[in-house]
């Protein structure tokens, strides 16, 4: 199957936006403009982008503590995201959520989540709601290999299976739960296998290949919209950086391992594909890159110039 060229260009651009956003976060954080925790998505861009390119604006996602990529890919606003991680009032959440809780309900981002596995219930419930309200919306739950050992993962797969809910569980297996190798703490041959006893089909894809992720997701979305139920997609991926900005990501991971993953960089892979297929030239893709760079600079400047919330806001939004 060959994808329409506009989808490929859109995915390329979205991956660039995520990469550039995360590089900028590194600078903002180490420059003292951002506090707290920053879990970077660099290296995993093809997963968020491949999945979200197959979704509509009114579909839902739940994200994770490593969530900037999902939010960019689903249509979050770069300026509002940057302002949010810097605690400014112009942020998506008026500075109340920060990096781990970015939400934009207007484009179906039901929130990043600081609890590992925190999105399982919410995404499955959003799918239940879509079914009850009689829409054909689908919900995607992004989660990591670490979250696959939380008990609620198995509870929600059971719910999704008995009620044929339009939900897609997307596992980003980056091979480390924080600092611990996944295989040391995870039974079975694969995470994808875990849905099979529930009768939920699963597939494993190369998480560096945005096209493969898109195709797997598109098939799952079609299945969900038709009322045939849930799918589990395990994406084999890797984070180039540490668990968070303060972790160099070395010691528990070998240099060779890191380099082997960087050698099949998701953005380079798609760039090569686009050029090989004569969809766009290198010069045209470079122009995309300059546009993203410009967009990022504007977002950063706007966020830096934005005020912090008034202290009077501290007890607003506790209740509706």
């Amino acid at each position, binding site marked *: 199957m060959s994808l329409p060229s506009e989808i490929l260009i859109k995915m390329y651009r979205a991956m660039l936006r995520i990469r550039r956003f995360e590089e900028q976060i590194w600078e903002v954080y180490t420059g003292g403009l951002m506090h707290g925790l920053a879990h970077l998505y660099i290296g995993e861009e093809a997963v968020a982008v491949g999945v979200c390119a197959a979704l509509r604006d009114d579909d*839902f996602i*739940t994200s994770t503590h490593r969530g900037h990529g999902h939010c960019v890919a689903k249509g979050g606003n770069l300026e509002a995201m940057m302002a949010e991680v810097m605690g400014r009032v112009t*942020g*998506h*959440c*008026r*500075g*109340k*959520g920060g990096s781990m*809780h970015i*939400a*934009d*309900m*207007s484009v179906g981002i*039901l*929130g990043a*989540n*600081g*609890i590992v596995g*925190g999105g*399982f*219930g*919410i*995404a*499955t*419930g*959003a*799918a*239940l*709601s*879509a079914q*009850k*309200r009689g829409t054909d919306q689908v*919900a995607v739950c992004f989660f990591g290999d670490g979250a696959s050992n939380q*008990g*609620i993962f198995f*509870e*929600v797969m*059971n*719910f999704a299976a*008995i009620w044929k809910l339009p939900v897609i569980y997307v596992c980003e297996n980056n091979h480390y739960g924080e600092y611990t190798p996944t295989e040391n703490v995870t039974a079975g041959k694969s995470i994808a296998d875990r849905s099979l006893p529930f009768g939920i089909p699963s597939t494993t894809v190369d998480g560096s290949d945005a096209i493969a992720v898109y195709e797997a997701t598109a098939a799952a979305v079609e299945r969900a919209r038709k009322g045939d139920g849930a799918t589990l997609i395990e994406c084999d991926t890797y984070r180039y950086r540490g668990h968070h900005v303060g972790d160099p990501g070395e010691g528990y991971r070998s240099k060779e391992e890191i380099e082997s993953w960087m050698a099949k960089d998701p953005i380079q892979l798609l760039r090569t594909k686009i050029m090989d297929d004569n969809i766009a030239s290198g010069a045209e893709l470079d122009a995309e890159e300059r546009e993203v760079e410009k967009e990022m600079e504007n977002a950063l400047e706007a966020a830096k110039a934005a005020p912090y919330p008034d202290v009077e806001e501290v007890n*607003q*939004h*506790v*209740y*509706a």
Partner: protein
Amino acid sequence: MSMREMTYGEAVKEAMAEEMRRDPTVFLMGEDVGKAGTVFKVLLGLHDEFGDDRVIDTPIAEAGLVGLGVGAALTGSRPIVDIMFGDFIALAMDQIVNQAAKLRYMSGGQAIVPITIRSTMGAGRSSAAQHSQSLHAWLAHIPGLKVAIPSTPADAKGLFKTAVRDDNPVVIYEDKMMYALKGMVPTEEDYTIPFGQAHIKREGDDVTLIATSSMVHVALDAADALAEQGISAEVLDPRTLVPLDRETLIESVVKTTRAVIIDEGYKSFGITGEIASTVYNGAFDYIDAPIVRLGAMDVPVPFSKPLEDATIPTPEDVIKAVQDMKIIHR
């Protein structure tokens, strides 16, 4: 206002049925809520009217159940989630405390989470330590949640309907010992009780008995006995713990100058402590006797009947507390 006599359980069911008829986005899910009408049988007939689509039996998986409710509430539905025994809320605490309670705040006011979690509380059924606890203080502790704790059939109906219409997560506790309790209940479809309004169940001048849920009836029994001894007790029911009608509690103690607080949660670190502190701060200059707190004994609820009975406040405990205040009428 037209009224009809019904039991506490019937009042809950009527509230639910009315809200489901009024709003198609309301549905109920929980373990055994369907044809069985819950293990307490109080919802019998609801499934007949609304069917599998809206009265939904679920797996025994409390975390997932509440989690699905939160996600549904976030996306245009108004689910009622039934947690059979309040003790089982422990299994769903992450969903309630870290998700439902915080999503609106963390999203800067973008989200609403109109989920109603109904559960039961109360000892007295020889059900032992894991089916008898009253853990409402846990949830009242968490900003972002509302907690209602009705003591009569009329309050059960009015508070339940308010809970379903509220855009916030509400946890409503029904004492399972009260399901057969009868009372007059308004039948208007728009009968609701605003949250945060304490209710004076009996007026009095000498002492205020602040009581919640089934302890309201313990307090009323005590007030009857005290009246025979010439002591006039006011019985006040906060009805909701969050929001808490602190003003009415304080006003009553300003008037009576004395208070006994009775709640079936564990005494230590519980509701009675919060209310006592509220009253001390608000009525300090008027208080004539140390405030007395009565709660469940700080032990796991025992099985054997004499042991279980010893853990729950009784009218006699309330009467003794008031007698010890040595009220002298001038």
